[in-house]
């Protein structure tokens, strides 16, 4: 049982998320081609490699600095919707982490909840609107529930990844109300949302990054 994570764990999680996205970027672009402009995979690739650069360049092992730099680096990607949303996610986490250098399960859950709130400040999209929110919100909620039930961070990340994957899968049946795909109206139904899929890959990566080292 893993009761706490620190800077190095966070680095592993982030790096593993980057790998998970990189492995699937072509699929992400394909999903975006159906209703958007087909660039989501490319944008995510850029976001992830910006993130990796920042991690590699980090000089002080502080969670706050790490998360802030990651958020800012992702914002620096000219990526349409993705950059600001994902960037806001990490920036809000940086804000929330303060000067803590380790987090227990509740700490992790509330950190991610703060990230979610950061995203919600940027968009009015709600679950059911067929956006990344459909993966992010259930993932964060699953974390919260898992932290209530016990202190194992591996289990918490496992639940979050499962919830994100489920949420992403469910977007296939939804009609898009945000992003470029909303122009498709009913025709958007049937395709899984690329942004939700990315989020689920990121959570899958977080989990793997911790598992591999546990």
């Amino acid at each position: 049982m893993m009761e706490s994570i620190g800077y190095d764990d966070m680095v592993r999680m982030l790096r593993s998320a980057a790998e998970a996205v990189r492995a699937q970027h072509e699929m992400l672009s394909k999903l975006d081609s159906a209703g958007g402009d087909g660039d989501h995979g490319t944008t995510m690739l850029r976001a992830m490699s910006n993130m990796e650069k920042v991690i590699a360049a980090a000089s002080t092992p502080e969670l706050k600095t790490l998360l802030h730099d990651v958020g800012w680096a992702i914002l620096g990607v000219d990526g349409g919707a993705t950059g600001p949303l994902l960037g806001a996610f990490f920036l809000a986490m940086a804000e929330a982490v303060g000067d803590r250098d380790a987090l227990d399960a509740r700490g992790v859950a509330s950190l991610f909840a703060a990230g979610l709130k950061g995203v919600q400040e940027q968009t009015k999209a709600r679950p059911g609107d067929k956006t990344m929110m459909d993966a992010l919100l259930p993932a964060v909620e699953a974390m919260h529930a898992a932290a209530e039930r016990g202190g194992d961070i591996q289990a918490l990340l496992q639940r979050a990844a499962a919830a994100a994957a489920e949420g992403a899968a469910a977007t296939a049946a939804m009609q898009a109300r945000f992003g470029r795909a909303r122009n498709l109206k009913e025709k958007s139904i049937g395709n899984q949302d690329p942004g939700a899929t990315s989020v689920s890959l990121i959570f899958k990566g977080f989990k793997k990054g911790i598992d591999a080292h546990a």
Partner: protein
Amino acid sequence: MRMKKFINNPDDLVPELLEGFALAHQAKVALTGNNLVVRAAPKPSDKVALVTLGGSGHEPALSGFVGAGMLDISVPGEIFAAPGPPRVLEALRLANREAGVLFVVLNHAGDVMSARMAMDLARKEGLNVKQVLTHEDISGGPRDNPEERRGLVGCLPVIKVAGAAAEAGRTLDECLAIAERMERNMATLAVAVSGATHPGTGDVIAEIPEDVMVVGMGQHGEAGGGTQPLKSADETAEIMLTALLDDLNVKAGEEVLVMLNGVGATTLMELYIVLRRVRQLLDEKGIALARSLVGEYLTVQEMGGFQMCLARLDDELKALWDAPCNTPALTVS
């Protein structure tokens, strides 16, 4: 099949095109280190500055409007993708001045989000910035649902009149009011007949069947428009103009500006033929075609089609529209 574009590594599209753009127009614009497009000769700092942001691949927009009488800074993003907030914030910092900064944002999800975030940060830093959002694409939904309406080539008249007001030494609030008045009084509709290729990915970004045209096509070939059989120039002009006049509720005796913006493969020849019909129709209705502008201003690569932008003019807007400007894409002397 390779796409038939003269490009190199797709990852280098934007820096390479900006390098050439700045070179071709070095008398008017310059590039900063992080690819902001600024004026070659800065505007006096006691006048309001205009800043905008937007994806690349729509040349000459938006950087083509940087120069005397229009923009001060443009923040070009990747191909069809808004620039991230950090560079936008830098542009706002660079433009910041006591007189203030008017920030023109086209209503596209990425642009709006990036702009909002940059604005939040700018306000925290105490920068003096106000934003105007353009959303005049009537295909997005009814007039009372502006969030659904995209920003198309109407950004140009907004930038033109607000830029002229800034040049004339008007205050930030005055410039904003002028920009918003122009914005409220315009309506745009796009028609497309053939698709384009995304220069970064090689994907076809709007496949349009034979003998068909799409009225209400978005700036990047986003679907959602009304597909209908291909019409003649005169019929198309009438369909589009009627919808725009309706939307703006233009009455006999009023004066309008009509812009026809070719998006790529459609020729000036065609646009002139359409303009001729627009005038005939306006004449019949007793509406004066006070000003017109025909050309390629906001393109979608080699897509075939055009945007028709109708704007109601009052005397002040007309005078600002006529004021001199000297930018790569528009010169009034």
